[in-house]
C-alpha cells in the first residue's frame, strides 16, 4: 500500500513547543540508565524513538508520562514542571505502556468508563467521550466483550482507546505494534496515522521501516543517550555525506603496508581492515564530508603494484545508519546534523 510522504514540513518548526525534556538523567541504584536526554516536542508532530532493547526508550517515556521522576533534569509540559503539578499535567498526556494486558475481567466499555472516571470525566461528558473513543478505535462492535477474550489487535486498540480518553494533547505509545500479526500491524499503523492528524505523538519502536513510515522526526537512542536526531531523510543524507568507500585488494597486499599508505591520503577519517579469502583485504574507509578520494586511492594502489579488485561507494539505508550509530557508539557521540 502506498505510504504517504510525511517529510518535514517547515510548518512544524514554527508550531509551539508542547513538551520539553531538559537534560534528563535517570539512575537505578547507582546505574545510569539515561544520560542527559534533551528534546522538544512540537505541536502536531510525530516523534519516533528508535533504539535497540535497553536503550532507554521506555525509561524516557515513563519519565515523560509521570510514571517516575528523573534523577536529574526536568520535564516541562507547556512551561510547567510535570513533577510539580502532576495531577493537572498528567491529564494532558495519554500513555500506552509496552505489552500492557489491561484488566482481562472487565468489558471493553466498562474498562473505558473506569479510565474516564479516573481521568475526572463525569456524566454526559464521560459517556460521550467513551462512545467516541469506542467508535474511533473500531471497538464499537466488541464493547460488551471481556477484554481477555479479545484478540491481541483489539486489545491494543483498547489500550490506545484508554490513552485517548480525556482527549490528551500528547499521546505516548511504547512499541504499539509489538507482538501483533502483520494484518494487525497495518491496522494499528493506520489508526496511529489517523490520530496523528489531530494530536502530537511520540512512539517508540525497534522496527525501522515503521519510523520512516509514520514519523516526522526520529531520535535514535542508545545506552541512555540520544545519538542522532532529525527526519529520516536528514539522517540518511547526513550520514551519506560522510560517506564510505569499500575497497577490495588482492594479494600480495599486506595489512601494515596498506595502513601506512593510507596514512598519506588526506580526508580518510576511519579505516576498517578485514582479511578475506585467499589473501584478499577488504578495507572500509570513512571519508571526510564532501571529499572524493577514489581517484587518488586507485592511483596510489597502482603505483605500489597492489592489485585493486574492487572499489565502491557505500550506500546507507536507515537500517545501516541505525546499525552504524549503535555499533560505533563506543567511539563517542556523533553529530549527524
Amino acid at each position, binding site marked *: 500500500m502506498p505510504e504517504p510522504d510525511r517529510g518535514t514540513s517547515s510548518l512544524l518548526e514554527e508550531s509551539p513547543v508542547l513538551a520539553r525534556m531538559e537534560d534528563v538523567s535517570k*539512575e537505578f541504584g547507582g546505574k545510569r540508565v539515561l544520560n542527559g536526554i534533551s528534546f522538544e516536542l512540537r505541536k502536531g508532530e510525530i516523534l519516533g524513538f528508535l533504539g535497540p532493547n535497553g536503550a532507554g526508550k521506555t525509561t524516557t517515556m515513563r519519565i515523560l508520562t509521570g*510514571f517516575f521522576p528523573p534523577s536529574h533534569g526536568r520535564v516541562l509540559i507547556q512551561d510547567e514542571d510535570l513533577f510539580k503539578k*502532576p495531577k*493537572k499535567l498528567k491529564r494532558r498526556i495519554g500513555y500506552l*505502556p509496552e505489552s*500492557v*494486558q489491561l484488566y482481562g475481567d472487565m468489558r471493553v466499555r466498562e474498562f473505558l468508563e473506569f479510565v474516564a472516571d*479516573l481521568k*475526572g470525566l463525569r456524566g454526559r461528558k464521560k459517556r460521550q467521550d467513551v462512545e467516541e473513543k469506542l467508535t474511533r478505535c473500531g471497538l464499537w462492535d466488541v464493547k460488551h466483550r471481556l477484554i481477555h477474550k479479545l484478540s491481541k489487535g483489539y486489545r491494543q486498540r483498547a489500550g490506545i482507546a484508554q490513552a485517548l480518553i480525556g482527549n490528551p494533547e500528547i499521546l505516548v505509545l511504547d512499541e504499539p505494534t509489538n507482538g501483533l500479526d502483520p494484518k494487525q500491524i497495518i491496522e494499528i499503523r493506520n489508526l496511529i496515522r489517523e490520530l496523528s492528524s489531530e494530536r502530537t505523538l511520540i512512539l517508540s519502536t525497534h522496527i525501522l521501516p515503521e519510523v520512516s513510515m509514520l514519523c516526522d522526526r526520529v531520535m535514535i537512542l542508545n545506552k541512555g543517550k540520544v545519538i542522532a536526531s532529525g527526519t529520516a531523510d536528514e539522517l540518511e543524507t547526513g550520514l551519506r555525506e560522510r560517506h564510505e568507500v569499500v575497497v577490495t585488494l588482492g594479494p600480495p597486499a599486506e595489512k601494515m603496508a596498506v595502513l601506512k599508505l593510507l596514512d598519506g591520503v588526506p580526508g580518510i577519517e576511519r579505516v576498517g581492515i578485514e582479511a578475506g579469502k585467499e589473501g584478499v583485504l577488504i578495507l572500509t574507509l570513512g571519508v571526510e564530508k564532501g571529499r572524493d578520494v577514489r581517484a587518488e586511492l586507485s592511483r596510489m594502489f597502482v603505483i605500489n603494484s597492489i592489485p585493486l579488485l574492487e572499489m565502491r561507494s557505500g550506500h546507507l539505508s536507515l537500517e545501516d545508519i541505525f546499525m552504524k550509530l549503535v555499533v560505533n557508539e563506543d567511539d563517542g557521540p556523533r553529530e549527524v546534523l
Partner: protein
Amino acid sequence: MRNVFIVASKETRTFLNSWSGVFVFFFFYLVSGIFFSLSVLSYARISMESLKEGYQTIEGLGLTRYVFSGLFLNMSAVLLFLVPIITMRSLAEERKLQTLELLYTYPLSDFDIAVGKFLGLVWIFELLFLPTLGYLWVIHGLGGVFDWGPILTAYLGFWLLGNAFLSLGLFVSSLTENQVVSAVVTFAGLLVVWMLEWVGSAVGGAGAVFFKAVSPFAHYRDFTLGILDLSHVVYFLLFHFFFLFLTMRSIETRHWNS
C-alpha cells in the same frame, strides 16, 4: 477523595466477579455457620440440663457470651485463611498485568492508589461479615434475649482486626507480582502475628508484656468480651497506618528500582 472511591469500587467489583471471591464467601458462611450452629446447640443442651437440675439460670453463662464470644474468636481464626485470599491479587495482579503502570500515569497520587485499594478490601470484608447479623435474627427467632453491648464491641473488634490483617496483606501484595507468593507470605505473616501471644506466655516477664502488647489477638479478645478500651482501638489504628505507610513506600520504589 473521589479517586480513592473509584479505585476502591473497582477493587471490590473485581473481587466479587472472581472465583476466589465466590470461594471466600462460600467458605466463610460455611465455617461460620457451622461454628454458630454448634455453639447454639451446645448452649441449648447445657441450659436444658441445668433446667433439669432445677436451676433457672447459670451464673456467668449468658447466651451472648456463650454463643457470640466463642463465635467471634473462632471467626478470627478463619480470617487467617481468608485474608490472604482476599488480598493476594490486589496489587500483585496489577503489577503482573502492568495495569499498575497505567494507574501511575493517570492523574492519581500514590495515596489514592494505596488507600483506594485498601478501602476496596475493607468493603469486601464488610460485605462478607455484615450478613452474619442474620445469626442475631436467628437467635431472636428462637426466643433468645441478648446483651447488645458485647455484640457491638465484638463487631467493632472483628472489623478492626480484619482491616488490620487486610492492610498487612495489601502490603505483601505490593511486593510481588505472583498471587500465590502473595497469599503464602501473607498467611505466614498472619500466622507469626497470631503466635506472638503464645511466644509472650512462653518467655514470661517483661517479654510477655511486650509480646502481649504487639499481638493483635490479645487486643481483640477484650472486644469479644464486651470491653471497649481505647488503647485497643489505638493499637489497631496504628497497625493500619504502619502497613499502609509501608504499602505507599513500596509503590514508591519504582522511582529508584527498575
